[in-house]
């Protein structure tokens, strides 16, 4: 029997050894408190390496990245790019878990936003700040490729405490409406520049049996993202709006805001097509391009997908006309979208820097913005795209939008946001006053809790 016990113990030792061998290999961890010797992007590594890249789902961008990765690998045969694609909603979650597993070299990171302001109390730092303070993002300050990007981008969308941690690749607009030119012409509808004109246009199309607007409501936020333009037309200074809400100078149920809620109800109830809540975010551009609907409120990033779905489809893009005064409807609201950051403890530092350097080469960057329709953050890049031509007339009026500034106070209720999707048929509310009171009540509960 003792032989059996010996055999059993031996088996367990072997089993434990196999388990240990399956573990993650020890990796050198970077001490963020110590200055790192700067590595500057240069030649490819002498040994073969695999560069792990994480990006968020955006079909034209993913298509471009696949082509770029091939080009990069052809030029640097010692580097193999292993790119993962995740839904935009899951990007921060996946980034966090892959940082924990030391399983990431280059990551897609949205422009730095939602930072704590002096008038905000007891707010947690946003996740990009948490990543920097934990020493997980590499300091890119001084890298040669940064010279290609404009200074406001470097400062506003990728820097913290005077150091650069991300390079942002483009601004996008989310307060516009795509419209079907053929349908507008066929039904003799004027392109709306005011709210009453928009309402009238929708009534005409609905009268003809054509849904007025569509959106990718299955993903949640696309159903109300277009209506950010409506907020913008009423509160053009979005940073001041956030401060006003925190300090109590603006309330979601004051007279000015009530105008916004009334219009949002019309948007959700009368303008959006029935069933929009079931359309996936990346399927909505195809539905619009099919010609089935007259308009599509959404971000400028959808343009390449519309073109890919129906190359001959003729469309235009206008600022959301939320105000009765056309002069108030000449603004674009948007954000800094995708950017690149490098994991501080990557074992492939040279390859990662080379990847960003190669990507930032003006010719490659121009191809990128042409493919994805971003507003370039490299001053030498041109707006060659159709969407570029559409947004150019009001580009000087670009403003960073509300959601990029907003941080909810702890204790605020779940309705403390200006979202049109709270209205029926997507939500439960049928009365703008009741909803406005509910939103303000939920916000006020948080403000009172952190006093």
């Amino acid at each position, binding site marked *: 029997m003792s032989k059996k*016990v010996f055999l059993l113990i031996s088996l367990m030792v072997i089993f434990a050894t196999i388990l240990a061998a399956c573990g993650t290999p020890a990796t050198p961890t970077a001490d963020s408190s110590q200055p790192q010797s700067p590595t500057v992007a240069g030649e490819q590594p002498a040994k073969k390496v695999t560069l792990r890249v994480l990006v968020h789902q955006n079909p034209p961008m993913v298509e471009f990245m696949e082509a770029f990765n091939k080009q990069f690998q052809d030029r640097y045969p010692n580097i193999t790019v292993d790119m993962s694609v995740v839904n935009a909603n*899951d990007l921060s979650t996946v980034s966090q878990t892959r940082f924990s597993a030391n399983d990431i070299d280059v990551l897609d990171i949205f422009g730095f936003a939602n930072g704590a302001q002096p008038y905000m109390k007891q707010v947690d730092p946003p996740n990009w700040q948490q*990543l920097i303070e*934990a020493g997980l993002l590499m300091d890119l300050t001084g890298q040669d490729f940064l010279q290609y990007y404009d200074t406001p981008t470097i400062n506003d969308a990728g820097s913290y405490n005077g150091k650069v941690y991300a390079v942002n690749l483009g601004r996008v607009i989310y307060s516009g409406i795509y419209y079907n030119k053929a349908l507008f012409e066929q039904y003799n509808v004027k392109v709306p520049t005011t709210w009453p004109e928009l309402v009238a246009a929708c009534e005409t199309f609905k009268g003809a049996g054509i849904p007025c607007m569509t959106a990718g409501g299955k993903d*949640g936020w696309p159903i109300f993202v277009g209506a950010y333009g409506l907020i913008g037309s009423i509160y053009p200074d979005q940073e001041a709006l956030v401060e006003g809400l925190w300090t109590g100078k603006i309330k979601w149920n004051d007279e000015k805001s009530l105008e916004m809620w009334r219009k949002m109800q019309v948007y959700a109830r009368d303008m959006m097509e029935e*069933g929009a809540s079931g359309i996936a975010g990346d399927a909505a551009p195809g539905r619009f391009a099919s010609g089935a609907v007259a308009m599509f409120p959404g971000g400028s990033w959808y343009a390449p997908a519309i073109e890919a779905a129906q190359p001959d489809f003729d469309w235009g893009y206008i600022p959301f006309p939320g105000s009765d005064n056309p002069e108030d409807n000449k603004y674009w609201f948007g954000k800094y979208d995708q950017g690149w950051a490098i994991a501080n403890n990557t074992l492939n530092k040279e390859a990662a820097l080379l990847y960003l350097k190669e990507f930032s080469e003006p010719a490659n960057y121009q191809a990128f913005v042409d493919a994805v329709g971003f507003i370039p953050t490299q001053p030498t890049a041109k707006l060659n795209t159709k969407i570029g031509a559409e947004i150019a007339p009001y580009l000087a009026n670009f403003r960073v939008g509300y959601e990029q500034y907003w941080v909810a106070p702890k204790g605020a209720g779940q309705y403390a946001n200006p979202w049109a999707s709270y209205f029926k048929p*997507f*939500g439960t509310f049928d009365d703008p006053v009741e909803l406005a009171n509910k939103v303000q009540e*939920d916000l006020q509960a948080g403000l009172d809790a952190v006093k």
Partner: protein
Amino acid sequence: MSYHFGRGWSKLTPYLLLLPGLFFYFLISLGPSIATGFFSFTDATGIKGAPIRWIGLDNYREFLFMGRASLDNLDALKRTLIFSFVVTTVQFTLGLIVALIVNQKLKFTNIFRTIYFMPVILGVVIQGLMWSLFLYPLGGPVAKFLALFGMRSEFLGGQPTEAFAWVIFVQIWANLGITMMIFIAGLQTIPSELYEAARIDGANTWQVFKNVTWPLLTPSVNTNLLLNAIGSLQAWQLFLVLVGYRNGTQVLGYLIYATGFGQTSGSVTTSFRQGYAAAASIVLFLLVLVIGLTLQTFLQRREKRILG
């Protein structure tokens, strides 16, 4: 009673055999549970290398008592209980009925068993995608069926109560097969002589079920009730796949996931708050513990009373 593992060191054999199982139990289950309890008293973000500070009961205070958010959390708690109660009772009842039917000596019984069990082997994502397509409001099969009666719905993207009801339905559909299989296993352990004796004594179908099948199914009843109740209290994946993070639909499990992993809406940045999520997890754990223990005590007493 003789000891089967010999003498001397050999006596340790059964304990050594238990070690791998215990190792994995500590590694995968108990260890993380204890760590969750610890993290619930900290401001841990879950980010590797980030400092962790002891903040006492602050997370619990915020979760249970701070502002309107705490009332929303309690609503999620209530919704979790409703979800668990409806799923447990309906899944249990349907599972029993289906098991009784497919346990008959009929043609194609095995095919029906396979059909009922098939959803179990699909992953949650596949289950969610399938039902998203069935419930597609723009011309999906269910929408077309409703249209025959002049009705329409946004289904999963519409009224929160309706979306919640659909998740309950899909949860039951997805797990009915397990309940059915446990009942079938129980039914097949009941000696056929007992049925024959009952029939000879003149018992009708209901009396046979009430006096033979039901009492002797007690172990399967207990297993199913506990599995259904605990499983449904912890369920959250279908909410993620089918409806996402929407007001009026969250259950506690999903709330924990969304908070702990900084789940965002589009590109809106949120914070990673695993300490806070850990506190919410402990609340859920206590809920499961109280309901699970109460149910188990009740079921064990019942089993003892019936089977001796």
